[in-house]
């Protein structure tokens, strides 16, 4: 630990969140997950108390699925962020949501928010995601309720739905 403690200095940053341009003021040490929850008022990304928990804090930054708890908000300046709170009207997200609902892969498990966003990110990168890809996605989360089979089925259905909607 160095002798002098850095003085808190807040930074103004702008980004687009779920299609809306936002300017917020954050401390550099605020993670993107905390900023989304506390500065943007979006509850969808579960509170994890810092750190990554079972993939639950996945969001899309410029289309790329990343853990919002493992990057600082200031790093997202100038980007476009999409979260599980996004309104309906997004092709892949809509497909994923309805597939998760259909397979009962929703429940109350906070990791579902992460699985939804990881699935959106993966299906946008690769609409033909194969079964190995589905297993890889499952491994990126931790279902407190052990609902892996329904999540797997949901991702496969989402793949079909998203293609059909394209």
């Amino acid at each position, binding site marked *: 630990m160095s002798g002098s403690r850095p003085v808190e200095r807040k930074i103004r940053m702008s980004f687009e969140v779920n299609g809306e341009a936002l300017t917020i003021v954050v401390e550099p040490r605020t993670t993107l997950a905390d900023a989304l929850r506390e500065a943007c008022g*979006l*509850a969808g990304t579960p509170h994890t108390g810092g750190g990554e928990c*079972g993939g639950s804090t996945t969001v899309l930054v410029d289309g790329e699925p990343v853990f919002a708890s493992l990057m600082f908000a200031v790093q997202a300046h100038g980007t476009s962020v999409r*979260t599980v709170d996004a309104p309906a009207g997004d092709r892949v997200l809509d497909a994923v949501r309805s597939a998760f609902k259909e397979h*009962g892969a929703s429940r*109350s498990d906070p990791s579902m928010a992460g699985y939804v966003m990881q699935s959106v990110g993966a299906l946008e990168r690769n609409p033909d995601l194969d079964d190995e890809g589905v297993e890889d996605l499952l491994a990126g989360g931790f279902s407190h309720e052990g609902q892996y089979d329904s999540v797997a089925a949901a991702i496969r259905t989402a793949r079909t739905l998203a293609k059909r909607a394209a």
Partner: protein
Amino acid sequence: MKNLGRSVPRYGADRRLRGDVRTVADIALPRCLDMRLVRSATPFGRLVSVDCAEARALPGVAAVWSSAQLAASALPIRVLGSGALDPYRQPLLAGDMVRYAGEPVAAVFAETAAIAEDAAELVAVEVEADTPVLDPVAAASVLSGDLRATEATTIRKSFGDIHLAVHNADKVVERRFSVGRDAPSFLPQRASLACWCQAREVLTIWAGWRAVEETRVAVSDALGLPLSAVEIRAPDIDGRYGAGAELSAEDLLCAHAAFALRRPVRWLEDPAEQISAGPHARGIEAVARIAFCEDGQFLAMDVEFWCDQGAYVLPDGLIAPDLFAAMLPGPYALEAYRAVGHVRMTNKPPTSAVRGAGRVEAAFVRERLMDTIAHECSLSVDAVRRRNFVAADAVPADRHVDALKSRVSLDGLRLGELMDMAEKRFALDVVRRRAHDRRVRGLLSGLGTAVFVEPSGLGPVDRAHLSVDHKGNLEIITTAADWGQGTFVAFAQIAADIVGIEMERIRVRGGDTCRIAGRGATLLSGRTVVTGTAVQNAAEVLREKILAGAAVMMGVPAERLAIRAGRIREADKHFGKQIDVGEVARALTPGLPLSDGTGLYAEGTNEVGAMTYPYGVAVAAVEIDPHTAFVKVTRASVAYDAGNVINPQLAEDQLVSGLVQGASAALYSMLDGWDGSGSAPFTLRCAGAAERPATEVLLAEETPTPLNPLGIKGVGAGGIVGIGAAIAQAVDDALQTPGFVEHLPVSSAAIRAHLRERAQQKHAPVEEPRDAELMI
């Protein structure tokens, strides 16, 4: 009956998919302070000083408390508590001693969570470290430097004459088994938010507890407030089967601070705290002496066990040891039984009740003992089980022991039939043959089963209020909160069928003390049993009231009326006059001639006499990698008879999640590699998606309970209770070594050592014939 027995989706099932959640962390109150705890880094020692001066000086810090700022206050012991246990209650902040690494020593209240954490680092804690007690069995009677006896309490349960049974036995065998300490499941973290409203003189708390009313009493006692000045609100609670739902020192600290500082205070646990400082679970070691006959008849069990209770007895801390002793005989008819349980204090985080508390451990020890008898008598374990089941004609069967002060009495047990059903449904002959074939090819493949009975639907009482508004919408208010398991929709299904109203018109609320007072604890499983029956009672009263009102309004005797889809008409007429329940509700408005003064409203109470006892057969198939000795559970199944099932999908989801959780816990502990000294490690040590077993569930519905009119027994822990025991037997089978597993979680290191030994024997110059060859 068109809703009961149907898989109606749970309410708000898709809210997580839309970010539409309001957990404690999502409730933003103006001027809210974040609490951060300074925790002891030392497991045991005298607390010399806590210097908060520097922390208090940090800008943004509202207050820093040590025990000096807090009047002596400790958590209550809610279950099986007594004055004698007072020295074992956990203080909110450590006083003279620290007794586990992670124990709260000081609390910081600051404008943001980050500042609170900065300030917490500035609190200087001085501890004169002493040698911690880590082994509950070997613990001395009094810890040096501590004034408490090491054994907080002794649990004793017995029936019959042990000496006579032992005298009559052909064989007496002693075995030692243990279940390791574990940390409860990982997500989500605990959270608490308290707010004092000076204008109303009311303290409002949002927290996900299971025993809302008891907690309310505890808070009012701790703060010296009238009970009516404490309100508890249930936020969205994410399915949480860990001990996180227990009233904790942190919760009471939030309440105290909100009251004293006159500002909202919240505490959001972080993941590191959850494992290093949150309640732990399990941790039981048992020595069992069993007496049996050569034909496999199980005569007696004499058990001494030690419980690694941790540093304090938590509010629900005695549930696990009590249920361990109560449920150890399980479904078997014994002539005599004696259990003596030493609840021992160690310098580790205190333990509490997590899913399957005491029963997971009991099923493991008991089924291991059945294997022992089978092995000693050269019988199959299934034959020994069937030989000893409580006879179906002896049901209801008094087991002569109490579980949480309620007499254990089995209300319907057809385990033999359930074993047959499981055998067929899960194609166990095929699985068994496949495992055998794989072993012949040198692979380590095995199948194991376990049987168990499960206490469910613990009372003593639960309540429900039903009312119909002027538009004909039915509201159900219960004391129970929905934890994500979906009980609310089950309540709605019960009310819908009894009242005769559509599901769409029903709304369910619960866990909110402003709307309803009274108990409503999710202890053990069976919320649907206890609260559901209260809902049923209320629904019956409501139905009578609707019919009586409609009879006057329609000029038709009530007994000739029927309610369908919320409309009342003459039962034998398909046409003619109909009125809606909303019209009846309007006519019954207090003040109007038809009203009884309460409106269209009914209360239901369910005073529980005895618990229900569902039962099950757990099945596990395992593969052991011969090179690494890592175990994989390939299949985990449970056949379960919970009587009538209100919502099969909810029941199945509960059982599957229990299977997955139990299969992970049987192989890995969150505390793997923790020697008990220092802080518990913060790592996610449980199985992930790649390890998930294929799961299957069979809901038998063969023995509806006579204890409630719906004939329902609880489901909650049915998946987890037997699966560890089944996995243990499957590992034995894979290794073809009866009685190999003596400890859960199953140790890969032990298997590796065993395989090594076996390989050495194989290469030994004089080769003994192998078991497998002898069997041919």
